[in-house]
Structure formats: structure tokens, C-alpha cells
């Protein structure tokens, strides 16, 4: 059977069945790719929320925990939660990597720290605890100003730093 649209007249109109076939094939493949992109976005692999987008890290004695976005997006708000375990101290000192904060636009810290000071390659934020035997959560609202892998660390009081990293999509 002669292929329809493949005769001289159709050719003169610009009909090109071979090219069209290839184009259709590429189209179908690209649809599959787009479905995969949507599925990974729904799973949270492209940032912006989703079951796989957040992760937690605890420090060595696993009393303090941070909850952060594994995948984030440039110029889009995200949260970093620091859960401080109950302790005897009335004050909580949270130390954060200087370099990390430089890459972020800090929108808010809830509750606000009572004082901040600059240390060696770190910023030290001090929070008051109403009653000492409670766990407190300090929430940082951050907007990434860079993209790619961004590493950071947070330490509570004199504890060891808890390291984490985000992958920030452009």
C-alpha cells in the first residue's frame, strides 16, 4: 500500500513522512520523560515539599535534631527546624555555620533569639527557655540565594556540629 501523504504533490507542500515519524517518536518519548519529571516532583525530589523532600539529622547523643529540606529551590522559601532536647540550662545557644548563613536570606527566626554574636566562622544565637525541662523547636525561614549543593552545620550549646546539605535547584 502506498503511504498516504507521501506522493509528489504532498511533498511539494512540505509533507515529509520520515521526518514526521521521527518527530512523533521523539514526542512520545518526551511525554514519558515529562511524566517521570512530574512523578519525581510529586515524590519531592525536585524540592517544594513532598514525602522525600525533607530529612532529619541528629547529633551523636541523638538528643538534638534538625529537620531540613534535602531538596530546595533557589529564591523559594524553606524551613530549617532545630529541635533542642530538654536540658538543665535556662538558655539555649545555637551555633550556625557562617558560610551557610551567607548563602541564605534569613526571613525570620521563630522564636526570635534574645541575642546574637559572631564567633569563629559561626554565628551564635541565644534563646531563653521558659522552663528548663522542655524540648524546644527553633524555626528558621530561609530563602536560598545560591544553587547547587549547599552544606551547613548547626550545633547546640557545646555539642558537636550536626552537618547537613541541601541540593538547591535553580
Amino acid at each position, binding site marked *: 500500500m502506498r503511504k498516504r501523504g507521501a506522493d509528489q504533490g504532498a511533498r511539494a507542500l512540505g509533507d515529509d513522512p520520515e521526518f514526521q515519524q521521527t518527530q512523533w517518536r521523539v514526542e512520545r518519548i518526551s*511525554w514519558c520523560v515529562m511524566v517521570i*519529571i512530574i512523578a519525581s*516532583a*510529586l515524590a519531592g525530589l*525536585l524540592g*517544594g515539599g*513532598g514525602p522525600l523532600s525533607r530529612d532529619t539529622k541528629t547529633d551523636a547523643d541523638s538528643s538534638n535534631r534538625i529537620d531540613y529540606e534535602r531538596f530546595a*529551590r*533557589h529564591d523559594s522559601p524553606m524551613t530549617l527546624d532545630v529541635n533542642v532536647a530538654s536540658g538543665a540550662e535556662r538558655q539555649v545557644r545555637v551555633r550556625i555555620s557562617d558560610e551557610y548563613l551567607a548563602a541564605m536570606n534569613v526571613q525570620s527566626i521563630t522564636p526570635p533569639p534574645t541575642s546574637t554574636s559572631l564567633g569563629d566562622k559561626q554565628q551564635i544565637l541565644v534563646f531563653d527557655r521558659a522552663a528548663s525541662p522542655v524540648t524546644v523547636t527553633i524555626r528558621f525561614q530561609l530563602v536560598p540565594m545560591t544553587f547547587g549543593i549547599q552544606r551547613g552545620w548547626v550545633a547546640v550549646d557545646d555539642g558537636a556540629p550536626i552537618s547537613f546539605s541541601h541540593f538547591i535547584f535553580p
Partner: protein
Amino acid sequence: MDSVLRAAAIYIGLLIIMRFAGKRSLAQITTFDFVLLLIIGEASQQALLGQDFSVTNALLVVITLVMLDIGLSLLKRRSEKFDKLLEDVPLVIVEDGVALKDRMAKARVDEQDVLTAARHLQGIERLDQIRYAVLERSGGISIIPKPDAKSA
């Protein structure tokens, strides 16, 4: 996740609203239809993008909208019922030069609209030269002239 859900919600929301509004609503017959289209675009833009100004978000929203559109078009091809549900059916509003008043009233089309389309598309000047005028699914009116209409 948010980008995909936001885009899907807006797409489905607008689809339902536009479908309920009837086919004549945004056929761009008047300047105001055009303005309405722009306002709808502006109003949904914020909800589509949220606070997220990243390139990733913009592309994800677009990919989601395009894929929803392709997905629905594939479904429409599979099922005639679904096609009608989503895209409406054509409606004959003039038959053999006679305007079907009740249909035209329900579809919010008047004789002037039909004659405008007749002049535009076929160079016809009177209703009795029209064999069929059809309000298409897209909201436009198409005209089928009587065989002798143009010579008359």
C-alpha cells in the same frame, strides 16, 4: 510536589468554571471577552506560582499543565462520552434559513451574532440564505450557505 498540585488544581478549577460558563463565554466576540481572558490569567498567576520564584517551579508548572492537557486529549479520543463532557457538542441554531429561537436564547446567541458570522465567513447578507448555522464547541459560529445563496 506543591508546584504540580497547584498547577493541577488551577487547571481543573478553570476547566470546570469555563465548562459551566457555557461555550459562548470566552469566544472572544467582544473586547470585554478578551479583557476577561486577561483578568483570569492575571488572577490565577499568583496561585500558580505561589512564593516560589525558581526556574524549576516555573518549568514544573508548565510541564504539569501541558501534560494534563495531553492526558485529557488522549482520554477524549478514547471515550466519546468524556469528550462531550469536557468539550460540549455542536448546536444547530439556524436550519434552512429559520432561526431556532429557543436554542439561540438558551445558548445566549442572537440573530446579529449569526449574521455577523455569515458576513465574515461567507459574505452572506440575509438569514434565509443560510442552510445551517452551527454554534461550534469552541464557541464560534460556522455557516453553511444554501447552494444558491451566493448567486442569488
